[in-house]
Every structure is written in structure tokens, then in C-alpha cells.
């Protein structure tokens, strides 16, 4: 029996490593084709519809998510700040949380669901209906033709959508603080500007650039390797979202650690207030 369990563990580990290896080969091919084709007019022509799908169509969901995050943060923190008589300073905490952490992560999670799911479903369906094979037989590489434009769209538009989400979050927090909690607008902004600088803003945006890369690569990889039939494509979509979500969360933690230690080395420990 112990040998059976060991065998199972070994088998699973081998499968996981093989999957990881396949993913890195896929990512390597994507970067190779990206460098080879990035500035060709054809790539730009293929990129525009993907940019519309990934970017423009995601604006409403990212805007609503961002705005409500800011509003919830305001609702949750205002009582504590009022209790210590520092309600004018609550914008620092809300805006810092929004631009550094919650904004980029929530925008990325929303995009992993909306964009990643759609990409996996589209490419998975193309896979099971032999459209990927048809591309190869006609002498076109599916990675160059399908993955590169989708990957670039995710890479470029996730930070832009994150900026949009950040702005909506900041406005959402201000809206609740000023119009529902009676906090004066001028000191709210003044204190916020003191606590949120370029470093904090850029930290979130740099993170979102990597989150975009993760969403593009994972969703395309899962689509290309989906199982057969509707069930196979459905499973690939679920796996795509779960894998993207987990990688985003783990990457966010690592980036937060790295950014904090860099910040302290450069600026030393600074208080929020």
C-alpha cells in the first residue's frame, strides 16, 4: 500500500512537472514569435481587434469593480478614523490600498475571469474543431497568429485598465467620504496626496503589467491544450481562471515583499500620517 501511495505521488509530480515544462516551452515560443513579429503590419492588424476585446469591452466591469472597492474601503474605515478624530486623513489609507494592492489585484482577477475565460474558450474550441491544425497545415504558426496578438493585448491593456480601476476606486472612496460621511473635500485630497506618491502608483502598475502577461499566457496555453469536446473546453476555462488567479496572488505577494524592501532601502521607514 505505501508503495501504491508513493507511486501515485510520483505519478502526479511527474505530470505536474511535465505540464510546467510544456507551459514554459509555450511561453518561450510566444516570446520568440513576439520578438520576430512585433513590428510587422500584420501583427498590428491582428492586435487591434484583440485590443478591442480585451480593453474596450472590459471597461465597464473594471470601472464598476474599482469604484465599489473604493466605496467599500471608505465605508469600512470611516468609523475607526472618526473614533480617533482623524477622518480627514482616511483618504491616505483608501487610496494607498487601492493603487498599491486591491486595485491591481481585483482588476487582474476580473480580467482573468472575463478576458482569460473568453480566450481559453475561443482557443479551446478552435483546438477541438481542428482549426489550430488547419492553421499549421496552411503554413501559419498558431502561436504567431493567435497567441502573440492576444498576449500583447493583455500585456499592454491590463495596466491601462488597472489605471482606470484605480481612478474609479479613488473617486468611489472620495464620493462616500465627502457626500455620505461629511468629510471636507480639500483636506481629504491634501492628505491623500501626501501619502500616495509615484512609487506607490508605479508599484501597482508594474504589478499589473506582469498580471497581464500571466492572464495572456495561461489562458492561451490552457486553450491550446484543452481536452476534447464541450467538457474539455469547459474544464480548460475553469483551470485557466484558477491557475491565473493563484499565480496573480502569489506574484502579488512576492512583488509586495520586493517593493517594500526596496522602498525602505531607498527612503527608510516613513509613516503614513
Amino acid at each position, binding site marked *: 500500500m505505501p508503495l501504491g501511495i508513493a507511486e501515485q505521488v510520483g505519478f502526479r509530480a511527474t505530470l505536474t512537472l511535465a505540464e510546467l515544462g510544456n507551459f514554459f516551452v509555450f511561453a518561450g515560443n510566444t516570446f520568440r514569435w513576439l520578438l520576430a513579429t512585433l513590428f510587422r503590419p500584420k501583427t498590428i492588424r491582428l492586435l487591434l481587434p484583440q485590443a478591442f476585446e480585451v480593453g474596450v469591452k472590459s471597461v465597464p466591469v473594471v470601472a464598476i469593480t474599482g469604484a465599489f472597492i473604493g466605496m467599500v474601503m471608505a465605508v469600512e474605515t470611516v468609523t475607526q478614523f472618526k473614533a480617533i478624530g482623524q477622518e480627514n486623513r482616511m483618504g491616505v489609507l483608501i487610496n494607498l490600498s487601492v493603487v498599491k494592492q486591491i486595485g491591481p489585484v481585483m482588476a487582474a482577477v476580473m480580467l482573468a475571469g472575463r478576458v482569460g475565460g473568453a480566450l481559453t474558450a475561443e482557443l479551446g474550441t478552435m483546438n477541438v474543431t481542428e*482549426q489550430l491544425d*488547419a492553421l*499549421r497545415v*496552411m503554413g501559419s504558426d498558431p502561436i504567431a497568429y493567435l497567441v502573440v496578438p492576444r498576449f500583447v493585448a493583455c500585456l499592454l491593456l491590463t495596466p491601462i485598465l488597472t489605471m482606470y480601476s484605480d481612478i474609479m476606486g479613488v473617486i468611489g472612496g472620495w464620493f462616500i467620504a465627502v457626500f455620505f460621511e461629511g468629510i471636507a473635500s480639500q483636506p481629504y485630497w491634501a492628505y491623500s496626496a501626501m501619502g500616495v506618491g509615484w512609487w506607490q502608483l508605479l508599484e501597482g502598475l508594474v504589478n499589473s503589467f506582469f498580471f497581464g502577461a500571466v492572464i495572456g499566457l495561461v489562458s492561451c496555453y490552457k486553450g491550446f491544450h484543452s481536452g476534447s469536446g464541450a467538457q474539455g473546453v469547459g474544464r480548460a476555462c475553469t483551470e485557466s481562471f484558477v491557475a491565473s488567479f493563484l499565480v496573480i496572488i502569489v506574484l502579488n505577494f512576492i512583488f509586495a515583499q520586493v517593493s517594500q524592501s526596496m522602498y525602505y532601502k531607498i527612503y527608510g521607514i516613513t509613516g503614513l500620517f
Partner: protein
Amino acid sequence: MSLIELRSIVKRFGRQLVLNHLELSVEEGECLVILGASGSGKSVILKHIVGLLEPDEGQVWFDGQRVDQLGERAWVPVRTQFGFLFQMGALFDSMSVEENVAFPMVEHSRFSPSEIDTRVGRWLGLVGLPEVRQKMPGELSGGQRKRVALARAIALEPRVILYDEPTTGLDPIRADVINELIIKLQRELKVTSIVVTHDMASAFKVATRLVMLSEGKLIFNGSAQEIQHTTNPIVRRFVLGEADEEELASIKSL
């Protein structure tokens, strides 16, 4: 030397041995029909010829060049000499019919847009569907999809056309239209054709030579007349469409 040669090809999927030291040659200009039961590995042969699958052992040769070890980029000039009709057509859902047919020319030819437009009309006319060019694949019937896919497969005027079960899922009249198209392309474009099928009516109509695949090997190689008089019991049963005692016993036991 033959145009296409498969030399001692072995292919396994997991533990299942699909091709077992398979030897197959295809001469220029012939229409070879590959027969075999469902799941016997007929489509796997086609996919080896165009490099969609790599053999575990053995070699694939095309026009005097060994191709099974080529990288993806080196395959491009070889693949443009092939047209491939997939079982379900494999038309790109997001493109209209004319964009589908134009695709290989846009990607691999130096034709001007107006020239491509003219050629799209010509190929759609050849398969008898000049009126569907603005439609999306989802708006077409099964037979129309296959004919559009055939127009796309011949868009670069290939030397070889591979047909993967071209009549499967079609009614007898639509199937006969496809058979006539295969013969017409053979005659007018002087192509080499390889047809994978288990439709005997289609096989007899289009074939200049037939082979039959069973348990990973060819068990018959000859003309339409020869296959009708073969004494091999497996081939005979396949041609006549008769199940054996063992297969019948499995349903009687229910």
C-alpha cells in the same frame, strides 16, 4: 522514388500502438484511398504526412526530402504544397467564407487584393458555391462547409490534397457531390489525392488504388476490382459491411 513515402512508421498514443511499422508509398497523380475501421489510425497517417504528428519511429519522405525531422519553420514551404480537407471542415469561425478561402493566399502568396478576390470567386465557383462568399461558417450546412473547406484547401493550387473522411455526416446526394469534386480536382488540377474514408461507395468512385489499415499495418493494397475479389476475411467483411460472430455475440448478450 514515390512522391510520398512512409517508412516503417511506429506511433503510440500512451500504451496503444496505432501504427506498427507501417510502410506506404504514394505515386504522383494517383488517388489513393485509405480504408479502415473507425479508430484504426487512418487520420493519423494523414497527420504524419503533413507533420501534425511526429512518428515514434520511422521516416516520412516527401518529394525526395525527409520531412519528419523538420522544425516548424522548415515545414512551411512543404506544407504549402498540401491541401488538407479536415473531417469537420475546420473553417475559421471568426472569418467569413471569402476570408477563409483567401486566408492561404493572403498568408503565402504575392497576389494583389484584387487578384485574391478573383481567385476566391474562382475556387468557390469550382466547388459550386459562388453565392456564399459573404456568409459566416455557422450559416452553412454540413455539405457546404466541406465544399468551402475544399475551396480553401485548393487555394494555393497544391500538389497533394489530403481528404479526411470527406463524406462522413453527409446524405448520399451531398456525399456524391463531394466525390465528384474529388474526381474533378484530380482531373483539372492534376493533383495527387489521398482520401481517408470508411465509405465504400465513395472509395470505389474516386480511387485509383486502395489500401486497408488494420492493427497498425496495411492488410490490402490494390485496385477497386481486386478488393472486391479479395479472399482476406477482414477486408471482405469491411467491403461488404458485415460484422463478425464475435461482434454480433456482444450485442446478443445484452
